[in-house]
Structure formats: C-alpha cells, structure tokens
C-alpha cells in the first residue's frame, strides 16, 4: 500500500486575526515564475506571499489594507493573475491590480446589502460572481478600463450564500448555501438570461446542513462539496456544460464520504492530480483519492491520510498550488498559514 506524508514546509505569521481564505495565483509556479498566493483575514487585510526560488520559502511581499473596513472573507485571482478580487463583510468587493509589485485598488463593486462571502472569476476572466448573506448571487461583466457592470442578480437561495464557483471550463456557475442546497446557474437563452437550472438538495442525496465549499476535478466532470453535516459528497455529470441541443446535463450524486470528520468541514479542494484535501473545524487536514482497488459497489474514494492537529485551531481553507508538483496551503483561525509538501 502507498504511504503518504504531509510535511510542513513553512508556517507563515503576519495576520493578526483568523485567516479565512487563500488563493494561489494561477499564472505562477511555472516557467521560472515564483509561486504567489494571497490570503485574507478577520484583521481586514489581504497579504501577498511569494516564494523565493533559491530557498523555496515564502515571504510576505505586500499588505493590502485600509480599503476594506471589515473582515475580508475571500479572495480570488483572475485567470491571467493580473487582478485580485477580494470580498468583504463590509458589503463590497474590491478589485486590485498589480502595478510593478504594488497593489492598487482599481475598482470597488457595490450592491450587496450586507456581507459578501465569496468571489469567483470564470475561466476566461470576463465574468465575476459574488454572493452574500443577502441570499443573492450577482454576476458582473468585466468592461474595459476596470469597469464592472452587474448583468444579473440571482435569487433562489433562501439563506445566506456561502460560496460561488465557476465551472473550470464552461460559463456555468455553482453556489452553495446555509439553506443546505447547491444551485447550478446557466445562461440558457439570450445573453444575460441567467437561470437556476438545477438544485442539489436533500431530496437528491444532498447535504443536510450548511454547504460551505465546493471544488471541481481537473476535467470538470466531477465536483466535491463539503458541509456542516460532517460529510463530503462527490457529484458527476455526463456532459460538461450545455448539450448541443441547448439542454443542460444535470449533475448527480455518486458518493458520500461520511464518518471521517468530527466537526464542520469548511473547505475542500481538488488537485489536478486527482487528490482532494479537506480542512475542518477539528483542526485536521485529510486527503482523499479515487479508490483504484475498488470492487464493484465498493467505496469510490479512500482516505489517503489524516494530518491531526495540522493547526492549533479550525482550518478554514485548503488550496493546492499550481505547478508540476503542487504544494498545499492551509489557513486557520490560529492566524497562521501553513505550506505543506505531499511526500509519497
């Protein structure tokens, strides 16, 4: 049997409150460009961390502050890596541009009634989605000159929306909520006619409590979700995106991973190598992979390893880096970020 180890490479201090989320810059980590990620915190700041190519160690390159007036809940790099979007409890989403190493706030997206909880760019970087405690999901179109126009306000969730994620290749949006549901949104007819095309809820083997996060596999035909109900669920679709006839290929539940987590699972992220990591309120990181020895009707995914006490407090976010040999980064209530190397 393969044996894996998650080795702590570095523990990064700097934030003065819980670290809620982090995001790797997708344009880094290859072609000699050092890895970069952004982290955001209850201390109202965003920090930019860069790897030194000779020591492989990360250091803080910039602190983005005095823009958000409350917790910065999540952050997301545009596909080109040139823009960073940050979502805050202050009801705004800020867009930052890297100008010669300095980050300037070039746009502020206003409209949500209260806390913005998540932000996501589509694959081409032309659309942005945000979601809020106000139960709505907004879609913004990127215009020339760093202008963002709201093209749709999606109502459908009955409680606060915890996360929005675009599909990795198609312009299909996924949202998950305190109302226990995952909703799939697509632009079915003419442009900007966004509709909810599917709801994955308790009645179709969905979650029985808050859904905190979701992540796609590399090919985009599978999705994993995590919840306050202490389970991870894997979902699959036959056809990615819209079929040629214009119909939507629905997602279906294929597997529930239960009994592994002791407290709320806040984060899940699927690596391009096929391993998904979970971060939970029990301070542990777990890694899962498809079960190659699976019998007919056997479990589809197996636990590769459990890293107990990965942090001193809840783990809010786990994210695999881009690049050939991905690193895992984790963000915690203990105010630190840790970078991990998966050794097999």
């Amino acid at each position, binding site marked *: 049997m393969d044996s894996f180890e998650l080795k702590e490479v570095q523990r990064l201090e700097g934030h003065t409150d819980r670290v809620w989320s982090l995001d790797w810059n997708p344009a880094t980590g290859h072609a000699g460009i050092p890895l970069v990620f952004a982290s955001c915190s209850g201390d109202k700041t965003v920090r930019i961390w860069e790897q030194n190519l000779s020591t492989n160690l990360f250091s803080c390159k910039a602190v983005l502050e005095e823009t958000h007036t409350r*917790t910065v809940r999540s952050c997301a790099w545009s596909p080109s890596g040139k823009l960073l979007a940050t979502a805050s*409890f202050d009801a705004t989403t800020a867009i930052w541009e890297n100008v010669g190493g300095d980050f300037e706030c070039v746009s502020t997206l206003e409209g949500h009634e209260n806390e913005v909880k998540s932000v996501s760019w589509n694959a081409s970087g032309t659309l942005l989605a945000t979601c809020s405690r106000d139960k709505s999901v907004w879609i913004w179109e990127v215009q020339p000159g760093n202008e963002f126009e709201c093209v749709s306000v999606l109502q459908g969730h009955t409680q606060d929306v915890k996360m929005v994620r675009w599909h990795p290749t198609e312009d299909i949006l996924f949202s998950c909520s305190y109302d226990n549901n995952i909703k799939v949104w697509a632009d079915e007819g003419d442009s900007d006619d966004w509709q909810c095309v599917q709801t994955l809820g308790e009645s179709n083997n969905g979650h029985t409590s808050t859904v905190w996060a979701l992540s796609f596999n590399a090919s985009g035909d599978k999705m994993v979700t995590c919840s306050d109900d202490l389970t991870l669920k894997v979902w699959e679709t036959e056809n990615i995106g819209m079929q040629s006839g214009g119909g939507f290929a629905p997602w279906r539940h294929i597997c529930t991973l239960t009994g592994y987590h002791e407290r709320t699972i806040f984060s899940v992220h699927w690596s391009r190598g096929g391993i998904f990591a979970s971060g939970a*309120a029990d301070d542990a990181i777990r890694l899962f992979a498809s079960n190659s020895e699976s019998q007919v009707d056997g479990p589809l995914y197996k636990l590769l390893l459990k890293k107990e006490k990965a942090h*001193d407090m809840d783990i809010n976010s786990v994210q695999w880096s881009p690049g050939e040999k991905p690193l895992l980064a984790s963000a915690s209530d*203990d105010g630190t970020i840790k970078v991990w190397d998966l050794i097999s």
Partner: protein
Amino acid sequence: MVSGLINANPVIYEKKQRQPRSAQSLPSDEYRVEPIDQQEIFDHIRDIKDPEHPYSLEELKVITEEAVEVNDQNSYVRVTFTPTVEHCSMATIIGLCLRVKLLRSLPSRYKVDIRVAPGSHATEAAVNKQLNDKERVAAALENPNLLDMVDECLAPSYD
C-alpha cells in the same frame, strides 16, 4: 401601555452557593496543570446578565451547572441553555453572550458548542444552527450595536 418585554415577569431563582476552588494545592503541586472542570466553566458564565432583566442567567435558571458538559482532555465544552419562554427572541443574543464569554475565558484550543435545551424553544434548530455558524457569529460581532449589547450583558455586576 403593554410591556414591550418578551417575558415581562420572569421567575427568579436563588443563586447557587459559590464553592471555593478546590483545596489548596500542596507546594509540590504548584506547577501541576489543573484540568478545567464543569464548575470553572459555570463560574465563567453564571453572572452573564440577561439581555432584558437586571438578573443573571443563573438567577433566571437560563443556565445551570448541570447544563455545562466539559471534556478537558478533548478541549470540548457544550453549554445547553434554557430560554425563559419558548418563543424568546433574545435566545440568539443569550447564545452569543455565552459564546463570546467562553471565547474570552477559555484557552484557544477549546471547541465550544452552544445550544438551547431540546424542546425549550419554538425555533430550536434555527437558533442552534445560527449560534454554531462561526461566520455568522464573526459577522455579528463586527456589528457595533450587537457588540454593545453583548458587552453590556458581560459587564461585571457589583451586587
């Protein structure tokens, strides 16, 4: 005018006698780590003031020592509180006060669950879900009005 209070006439109970902390440790035990127990947790929260009455949560029997479950080895606490009336809209504020007080009093390794006693509240599941959603708690504590209300309930009383 009718009273605007949720529960205008609450029943007041006698406070439980304060027990001195366990017998003096012997000098050789000076550095021994004392595990956190039920009584210690109860001492942290018994004097929290009710949001609408000049009485403590103990005097209103919203909390009792028996309603505190603690496992120091696993760094786990669960507090089960009983609102004075079953449609009490103050339940989430009381729960928030309990959470904040324990957050400020206990070592950070502790995991805390707060819930209303089963059957004691009309929207029990909704209240419990809200009190244990840390994102909602974090957002609530950034609301100056709510934080003032919580701080007032946690302010030491001088009886």
